C-alpha cells in the first residue's frame, strides 16, 4: 500500500470529512494542485471548486468547496472552507434551480457556487 496522508476537511461549523488518503486535488487561486504524501509544507488559498480526495482504500470522495485554505504539514492535510459539501450531500435539483436563478439575476458568485456543486456531483 502506498504511503498515506491524513486529511481533515472542515467547514466553519462542522467537520465534513476526515480520513486517510493517497492523493488530494484542490483548486487554488493559481491553479489546480495535487498533494501526495510527503509533499513539502504548503499553505494555499482555495478557489471555489471541487476537491477530489482519493482515499487509501481506493475510493474517491468529491466535495464542493467554496473559498478557504489548504494547508499541509507533517503528512497532515487540512482543507478549511467556509462552506463545504460532499458530493452525495448535494441536492442536484436544488443546485440546478439555484443555477437558473443565479443566471437570471446575473449573480456571478451564486452562479459559480451552483456550478461548482453540479460539477462535484458529476465528477466520477
Amino acid at each position, binding site marked *: 500500500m502506498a504511503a498515506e496522508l491524513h486529511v481533515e476537511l472542515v467547514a*466553519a*461549523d462542522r467537520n465534513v470529512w476526515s480520513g486517510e488518503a493517497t492523493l488530494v486535488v484542490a483548486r487554488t487561486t493559481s491553479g489546480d*494542485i495535487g498533494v501526495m504524501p510527503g509533499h513539502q*509544507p504548503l*499553505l494555499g488559498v482555495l478557489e471555489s471548486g471541487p476537491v477530489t480526495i482519493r482515499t487509501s482504500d481506493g475510493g474517491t470522495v468529491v466535495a464542493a468547496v467554496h473559498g478557504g485554505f489548504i494547508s499541509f*504539514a507533517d503528512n497532515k492535510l*487540512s482543507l478549511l472552507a467556509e462552506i463545504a459539501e460532499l458530493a452525495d450531500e448535494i441536492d442536484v435539483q436544488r443546485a440546478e434551480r439555484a443555477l437558473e436563478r443565479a443566471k437570471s439575476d446575473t449573480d456571478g458568485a451564486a452562479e459559480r457556487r451552483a456550478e461548482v456543486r453540479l460539477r462535484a456531483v458529476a465528477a466520477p
Partner: protein
Amino acid sequence: MGAQLRVYKRRIQAVTATKKITKAMEMIAASRIVKAQRKVAASMPYATELTRAVTAVATGSSTNHPLTTEAESPVRAAVLLLTSDRGLAGGYSSNAIKAAERLRERLAAEGKEVDTYIVGRKGVAYYGFRERKVTESWTGFTDSPEYSDAKKIAGPLIEAIEKDTAEGGVDELHIVFTEFVSMMTQNAIDGRMLPLSLDKDAEEDGKKDELLPLFDFEPSAEDVLDALLPRYVESRIYNALLQAAASEHAARRRAMKSATDNAGDLIKSLSRLANAARQAEITQEISEIVGGASALADASAGSDK
C-alpha cells in the same frame, strides 16, 4: 367564600400560572444549552486549524500586514459587544455591558477614542437610552448564530481596521463577550482581536513549543495572509457568538430556575395564609352559629316564663 380567602386564591392561581411559564422557559433553555455547546464544539476544528495557519504565516514570513502590526500611537479602537436579544436571563446582558464599560474606561485612559459595535437588542437599548453613539449594531440572531451572521459582523469591522485612522478607521479591535466555562459559570470577558498577539494565541492552544514547518505559500505569503486574516476574524467572532449564545441559555436557565423556585415558595406561603383565612372563617361561622343558637335559646326561655 370570604373576601380574604378569595384574594389569596386568586393570587395563588396567578403565581401558579407564572411558575408554569418559568418552568417551561427553564426546560427550553436547558435543552438549548446542549445544542449551543454542540455548535461550539463543531466550530472548534476550523478555529484551531485557522489559528495554526495564521500563526504559521505570521511567524514563517516577514510580511507586514496592517492586521498584524501594531500602530505606533493608536488613536481609535473598536469595541464589539455581544449581548442578548431577549431579557429574562438574569445578569447576562448587564454583566457584558459592564465589562464593556470597564474596557471603554481603560481604553479612554490610554487616550484612545472608542467606536462601539453592538450585537443584541439589550445592548442597543442600553446605549440608545443613554443616547450614546453606536457605530453599527446587529440584532435578531443571538439565540442561534450562524456563520453568515459572523461574516456580516466581521465585514464592517475589517473595513474599519483597514481604513486609515485619519479617515475614521480604527487601530485596534476588541471584543467583549460572555465566555462559557460551565453550566454554572459564565464570565463576561474582553479580549483584543486585532492586531494579532500571536504569543498569546499560541499559549491558549497550549502548543507553544511546537515548531512550525517552513511553508510553501500558494500564491504568495502576502496573498495568503490577506485571505487568511479576514477569515480568522470571522471565525473568532463566530466562536464568540456561539459561546455567548451558550452562556445566554445557561444564564436564562439559571434565572428561570430561581424564578420557578421563588414561585414555589410563594405558592406555599400563600396557601398557608389561605388555609389560615379559611380556618378563621370557619371559626367565625361556628361562633356565629353558637352565638345565634344560644341567643335563640335565651329568647325562647324568656318567653316561656
